[in-house]
């Protein structure tokens, strides 16, 4: 639907194309019969059409009138042609001004570029249909393509467009032959300005190289996207149904209870997600807890502890940053530290140097190194470990709720744990973990050797 009565957003007062008004003033001066560019008749085969001007005359007039150099006059002339106020009679597709005897003509004010009337596709379709009639079905390549695409998306108006084109063609026949020729040239020039022809050879090559490069990245990203979609298909919250049931729809919070942060027995879907990537495992708190347990059994928990400490530094408050950084250095990085992590010499050098002036991301390199280490080494072993297999076996697969089940649930409904209480529980848990202290490998070994002999230290 063509939009009429467009609110012009104050363009009346400060139009975007103020240059158009100025160009119009120049044109009106140029075409003045006494002081303007001198015109000559254009001789065609049968007829003579007046008011043709040569390129060199235009350039000379502009240079004279505005006291500018020839090059500047050429540029100004080119601008006039590019806007569509003057059109070339020979070589009509190239909107440039040639400062020689090539001929130009002034465009009629009906076809002047105007900001308040956007160039309509309907008009272009009518023009192409008319051109098709005149050229008896032989349109240029780009015109043909445009015609077809317009036919596709403006199909509902097509009867009207064809009828209007015919009527305009017939009305044109009522005019005298030279006028008809001039009108055709004017219209053609208008559409060369507003729907420029696609230059076949140059753009073809350019397009080809562009599409090649784009294809490669496209294919890469496509493959990745396909893989991602296949993997996460069942876990997508929109595509797969929520088991047992969506709490927002059925008012039954089993789904949330089963997927709580520190739930004892996770769901099968959750466990499956841990196998997708190491990042997923660490992102899920239950997964991270499981992984911690596994690492404790393997006595290589310092890597994960270091990683968590780095995360804490990155996301923590700025006030505690210095302190935390020092703590981490003492615990993990210093020579002879209780939980010394094994990173390569270069990274260690960079990190230690950075720690002299610590900031949030000072441990980034070390963290990435440890992450990759865990991913390549511990993650694989974790997935094959009895800890994980146990968790997998115990994981529950809730069934979808039936309607009767939901009604029963509604009867048994009780308010759930307040999030404040949940938070308090988490903090207590964290405090307990902290007070039990960093597990020193030597202590653990001594504990193991003195298993039967000592009384275990009292828990606070």
């Amino acid at each position, binding site marked *: *639907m*063509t939009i*009429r*009565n467009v609110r012009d957003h104050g363009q009346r007062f400060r139009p975007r194309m103020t240059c158009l008004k100025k160009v119009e003033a120049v*044109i*009106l001066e140029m*075409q*003045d*019969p*006494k002081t303007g560019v001198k*015109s000559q008749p*254009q001789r065609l085969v049968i007829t003579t*059409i*007046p*008011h043709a001007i040569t390129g060199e005359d235009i350039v000379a007039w502009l240079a004279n009138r505005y006291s500018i150099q020839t090059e500047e006059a050429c540029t100004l002339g080119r601008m006039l042609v590019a806007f569509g106020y003057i059109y070339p009679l020979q070589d009509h597709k190239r909107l440039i001004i040639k400062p020689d005897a090539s001929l130009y*003509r*002034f*465009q*009629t*004010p*009906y*076809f002047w570029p*105007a900001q*308040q*009337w956007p160039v*309509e596709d*309907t*008009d272009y379709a009518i023009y192409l*249909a008319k051109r*098709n*009639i*005149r050229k*008896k*079905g032989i349109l240029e390549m780009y015109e043909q393509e445009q015609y077809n695409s317009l*036919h596709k998306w403006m*199909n*509902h*108006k*097509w*009867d*009207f*467009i*064809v*009828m*209007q084109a*015919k*009527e*305009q*063609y*017939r*009305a*044109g026949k*009522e*005019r*005298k032959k*030279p*006028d008809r020729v*001039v*009108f055709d040239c*004017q219209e053609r020039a208008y559409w060369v300005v507003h729907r420029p022809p696609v230059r076949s050879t140059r753009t073809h090559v350019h397009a080809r190289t562009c599409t090649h490069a784009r294809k490669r990245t496209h294919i890469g990203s496509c493959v990745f996207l396909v893989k991602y979609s296949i993997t996460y298909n069942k876990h997508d919250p929109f595509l797969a149904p929520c088991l047992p049931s969506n709490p927002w729809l059925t008012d039954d919070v089993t789904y949330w209870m089963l997927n709580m942060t520190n739930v004892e027995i996770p769901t099968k879907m959750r466990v499956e997600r841990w196998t997708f990537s190491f990042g997923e495992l660490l992102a899920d708190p239950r997964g991270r807890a499981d992984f911690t347990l596994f690492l404790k059994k393997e006595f290589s928990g310092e890597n994960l502890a270091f990683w968590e400490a780095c995360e804490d530094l990155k996301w923590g408050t700025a006030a505690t940053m210095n302190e935390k950084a020092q703590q981490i250095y003492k615990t993990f990085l210093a020579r002879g530290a209780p939980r010394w992590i094994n990173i390569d010499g270069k990274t260690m050098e960079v990190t230690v140097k950075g720690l002299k002036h610590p900031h949030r991301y000072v441990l980034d390199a070390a963290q990435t190194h440890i992450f990759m280490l865990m991913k390549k080494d511990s993650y694989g072993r974790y997935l094959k470990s009895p800890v994980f297999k146990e968790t997998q076996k115990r994981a529950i697969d809730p069934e979808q709720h039936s309607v009767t089940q939901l009604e029963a649930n509604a009867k048994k409904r009780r308010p759930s744990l307040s999030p404040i209480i949940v938070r308090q529980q988490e903090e207590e848990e964290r405090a307990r973990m902290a007070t039990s202290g960093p597990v020193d490998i030597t202590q653990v070994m001594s504990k193991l050797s003195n298993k039967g002999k000592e009384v275990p230290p009292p828990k606070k």
Partner: protein
Amino acid sequence: MPLIINKVCDDGTTSSPITMEEGKALIESLIKVVACYRHLASCVGGCTDNLHLRCELQQTRERAHKLAVACRHHLTARLRDKTLPPEERQEMERLWVAFTSSLELLHVDMCKVLNMGSNFSLVNTSALVKTGIQGETREVAARALSLADLNRAEDPVPGSLEDLEQGQLKEEIVRVDQMLEDMEEKVNVPRWMVEARGPQYADPASMDSTSLGLYSMDEEASVQHEQRCERSQVFVILALCGVILVAAVLSVCVIYFS
């Protein structure tokens, strides 16, 4: 056909029922008038812009308005009729799309003419752009008004006519605007659902025939085209044979008499 249209225009009331063919003819006339108006409007501001052109523009506008009012009555009456069978409704919707598109084109052209008319005053003829047009547009206006020829009134005074004309033009633009909005409100036709039945390409060979319906043009045109092709081929063959015969006779004569 012009007689029928005049009768309809004179009526202007919704009570007299217009047949489907007459409705189609109205729309076709409107499209023709809009096409002619565009040709006339392209001359405004150029070197052939004069009072006659402005008069012609005004007359064309009036004619377009009359046709538009008649079309509107016909289409709104038909489309609001709930008992319309589906094929007729589809046809009416197509006509409605054609009608609103022509009105929109006319609206844009009228706005442009108003703008250009205010920029190019006829008093100062040296400011009119030398566009290369030489002839007059009488025939185009005559075609729009479906008359054999325009009879020109005596030349009115330039200045007063222009102001009057600009004022009138503004009013007419507002009227067309109003009409379009009314149509949108009263009749609910989703435009994008309308399917065009005509051909994708206007058949160039059929441009010589004067009256064509909206649907049958393709078949008529193709038949006429084929007939003409065959006939022309036959003529060419006959002509060639004739030439060969004449040449043979002449050569025989030459041989005998030399």
